[in-house]
């Protein structure tokens, strides 16, 4: 592809025409037809944040109940539902949809420098199906049908004999909904990253956040099927009398644990890696320097992606597995510490050699460093089989995974929100309120969860709805409950800050942080076509590295929604693709799919009969229609060559 001499652009940046071509419908029905990635990404974020707040309310109820010994505020039946829904909400309805889907869908196409995500209708469908899954779980809770067997729902407790009624079935189908959503988004993101990067953004120049989203997409693709398989097996055991987990008939309850944790451990990296990606994005911006060790970090991320699938048995050390395999999984678990350590060292080196600006997002990044470090190191302790025998299933583990997940996802999430909300709303968040939020949350968090390490060592098992006073756990639990109040106060400050900034924050401008990646090269908020001009890229931080006369792309049509497709390795332009426009069908399909799935809880025929409307809506979705066919280039066989 030859780059021409400087020319005067004829009409390549006709913003009016671009706006008309890419415009998303408005109004009530327009809301259901919108397929632009910024809209869907924001919806993922807002919805998952609402679920986060709901899950937080449940957490507050847990802390209320545990604040005193022999407390009878909440009975065991309700308590079991509360902690199960708390865990399931935070993992399935908040952490993954926020960190993977929300941030991914919003920022990835912008950082790639393209005009929409690949398969925007699939992306929209993934959002609706996720909302239905979340509603299913929560409506269940209000109908006393809240799942009550823990967020990993071990059989046989969650099975047909020990959980009568439909509680586990609601949980199992919620899993199906959310995993279908994550898988759909994984396909969209992987395709966008591999095929829609700006020309010149070779794999070597690809920003770390894109690398991590790519690795994540593949982790989702290989991990999520495991939980769909296992929750389907559970559902079939409960509804059509299969015998997968019935030891009396050749079934095996440990099969459930193996399959669940084959998903479950990659899952925690699916939650943590987006956080690390945000940190790797923010550190260079606020240390005012290219990140040190781009290759090392990318290698670490890829290594984490592989190793994450080799450690699942460390959740099962107490089941009495043989010494040899236990040692193997200890070794694998310790090995996965290394890539994370490498990332930490690279972040330190970047700051060490940079010029640190302690702006608000960076404060949260430092919170991440502190909190996640503790969580990671207590993970080293848990990797040891004998130590795990003592602290497994106690509050020590509860403390550990809250340090890892809140440290690895929530702190980076707030860093990311303070960083990208100006891009999303066009207005800056208030600095002072942000700091108040940070310190309240940081202090409260450590008060609540550091305490739990001691509770665990002192023998408090997790998932108890109360405890006898003779155990002397009351004081520490009270301290933990007080910490929860601080966290709640911090969240209220954040919400106030958000709405205030949305209404009257200072205008952000396109690039308030003087950052280097492409999402800052367009207005805040970005228009529906994302970029007026499509950039080419000359370095890892395009806005820092690009030459003043860096070429821009011309020849992508603006009268139809067309994007440029480049190849995976070196981002050479290959062809142009017309993007599907707004459509109601993804929403309708999500409704018919939901009917089939929910029906299947009550009757196995639900899947069979329910499939008929699904097929109809799918054909409606995929049937070609719309504007008259644009004149096309002749089709070429095989790989297109220059």
């Amino acid at each position: 592809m030859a780059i021409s001499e400087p020319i005067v652009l004829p009409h390549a940046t006709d913003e009016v025409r671009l706006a008309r071509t890419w415009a998303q419908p408005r109004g009530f029905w327009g809301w259901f037809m919108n397929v632009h990635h910024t809209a869907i990404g924001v919806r993922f974020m807002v919805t998952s944040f609402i679920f986060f707040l709901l899950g937080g309310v449940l957490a507050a109820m847990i802390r209320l109940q545990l604040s005193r010994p022999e407390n009878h505020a909440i009975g065991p039946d309700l308590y079991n539902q509360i902690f199960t829904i708390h865990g399931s909400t935070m993992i399935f309805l908040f952490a993954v949809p926020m960190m993977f889907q929300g941030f991914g869908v919003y920022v990835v196409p912008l950082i790639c420098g393209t005009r929409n995500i690949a398969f925007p209708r699939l992306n929209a469908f993934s959002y609706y199906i996720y909302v239905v899954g979340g509603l299913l779980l929560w409506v269940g809770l209000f109908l006393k049908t809240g799942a009550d067997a823990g967020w990993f729902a071990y059989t046989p407790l969650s099975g047909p004999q020990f959980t009568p009624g439909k509680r586990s079935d609601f949980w199992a189908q919620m899993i199906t909904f959310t995993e279908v959503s994550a898988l759909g988004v994984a396909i969209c993101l992987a395709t966008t990253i591999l095929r829609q990067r700006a020309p010149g953004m070779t794999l070597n120049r690809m920003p770390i956040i894109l690398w991590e989203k790519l690795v994540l997409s593949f982790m989702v693709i290989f991990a999520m099927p495991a939980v769909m398989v296992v929750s389907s097996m559970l559902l079939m055991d409960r509804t059509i009398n299969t015998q997968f987990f019935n030891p009396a008939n050749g079934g095996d309850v440990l099969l459930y644990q193996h399959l669940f944790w084959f998903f479950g451990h990659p899952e925690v990296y699916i939650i943590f890696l987006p956080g690390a990606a945000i940190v790797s994005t923010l550190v260079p911006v606020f240390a005012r320097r290219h990140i040190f060790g781009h290759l090392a970090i990318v290698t670490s991320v890829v290594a984490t992606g592989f190793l994450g699938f080799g450690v699942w048995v460390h959740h099962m050390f107490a089941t009495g597995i043989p010494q040899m395999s236990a040692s193997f999984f200890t070794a694998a678990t310790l090995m996965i510490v290394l890539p994370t350590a490498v990332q930490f060292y690279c972040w330190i080196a970047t700051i060490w050699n940079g010029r640190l600006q302690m702006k608000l997002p960076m404060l949260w990044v430092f919170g991440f460093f502190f909190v996640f470090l503790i969580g990671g190191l207590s993970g080293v302790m848990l990797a040891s089989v004998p130590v795990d025998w003592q602290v497994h299933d106690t509050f020590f583990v509860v403390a550990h995974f809250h340090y890892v997940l809140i440290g690895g996802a929530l702190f980076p999430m707030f860093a990311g929100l303070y960083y990208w909300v100006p891009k999303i709303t066009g207005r800056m968040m208030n600095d002072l309120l942000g700091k108040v939020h940070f310190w309240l949350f940081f202090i409260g968090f450590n008060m609540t969860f550091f305490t739990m390490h001691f509770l665990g060592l002192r023998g408090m098992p997790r998932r108890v709805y109360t405890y006898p006073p003779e155990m002397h756990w009351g004081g520490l639990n009270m301290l933990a409950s007080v910490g929860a109040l601080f966290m709640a106060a911090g969240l209220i400050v954040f919400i106030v800050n958000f709405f205030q900034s949305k209404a009257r924050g200072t205008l952000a401008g396109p690039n308030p942080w003087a950052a280097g990646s492409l999402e800052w090269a367009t207005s805040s908020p970005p228009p529906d076509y994302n970029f007026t001009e499509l950039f080419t890229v000359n370095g890892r931080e395009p806005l820092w590295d690009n030459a003043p006369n860096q070429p821009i792309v011309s020849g992508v049509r603006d009268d139809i929604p067309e994007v440029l497709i480049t190849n995976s390795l070196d981002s050479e332009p290959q062809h142009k693709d017309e993007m599907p426009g707004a459509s109601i069908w993804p929403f309708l399909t999500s409704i018919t799919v939901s009917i089939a799935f929910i029906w299947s809880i009550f009757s196995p025929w639900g899947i069979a009969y329910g499939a008929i409307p699904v097929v109809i809506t799918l054909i409606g979705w995929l049937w070609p229609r719309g504007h008259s066919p644009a004149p096309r280039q002749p089709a070429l066989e095989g790989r297109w060559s220059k």
Partner: protein
Amino acid sequence: MIAASSPMRAAAVLASFFQGEHNSLHPAGPFSSNIEWLYWVIFWIVFVAFVLTILAFARASAKTYSRAEEMLPIMKDEEGDRKAKWAVGTAITVTVLTLFAVLFMSVITGKKVEGMTSSNPVTIQITGHQWWWEVIYPNPQADQTVITANEIHIPVGKPVVILTSSADVIHSFWAPSVHGKRDLIPGYSSAFWIQVDQPGTYPGRCAEFCGLQHAHMGFSIIAEDEATFEAWEQQQLKPAPDPTDAEAQHGREVFLTHTCVMCHTIRGTDAGSRVGPDLTHLASRNMIAAETLPNTTGALAGWIVDPQRIKPGNKMTPNPLAPDDLNALVTYLRTLQ
């Protein structure tokens, strides 16, 4: 008043943080001691790692912190990159070596803990039920088999084999002062060793979520010297004595003609159901309801009348007996030494 007492109350609360026998850092036998040793070794390793990392962050931030609002990014810094390469390389090497050290010690300790053997040990079969522990000292002769619940007597200083099984869902057997936990899994039976070196009572709890009353599923390990243990065992083998006084006789009548008999065994009477705990020597136990209540007359009566208030969802039915019947029943049960 509050002001005067609050320092004292604070001190009491603080002191309470470090009380309690159910503690994995208060080992009472070789297994838990080994694990405690390993715990502290790894703890100090990660503590040092934590301090070093935080110091590195602090140093890096302090060194390069700048208040300037607008700053151009550093585009080229070969000197810094070269130094950082060395520093990061060294740090990675140290990390790898440390991880190997942790792995080595962990595996060695694991072997030590699992490699215990002994000839002709006391063998105890533990079966987890929702929400209590059935304890059987198996013997080829049926009349030499001790069956009890929730309280595990063992001889001090001798290795004991625990055989595990579950009657319903997954439970986990955990007495932190004695050993780490071991899951009781339906369809699987496994065996492991425990040993206690000081006489005493060591509490334990179920550690795997098992349903409504997971919170109230305790047990205790009572380590006593050989002679006391054998005396206890002989006493447990006897059938229940016939009650002598009239009230206790009436109590037995109540037991045998009410709901009790549907679930419980008292050897030496017609009651032989194995649904609930064996009550033949109920009065010899310290606690009832899986370590939920002390085994006193009042607590026993309260438990019989309304167990669902104390452990909502447990499998025992409420027994709103007439006061006379209740007193007689409790009197009888208290005779079951």
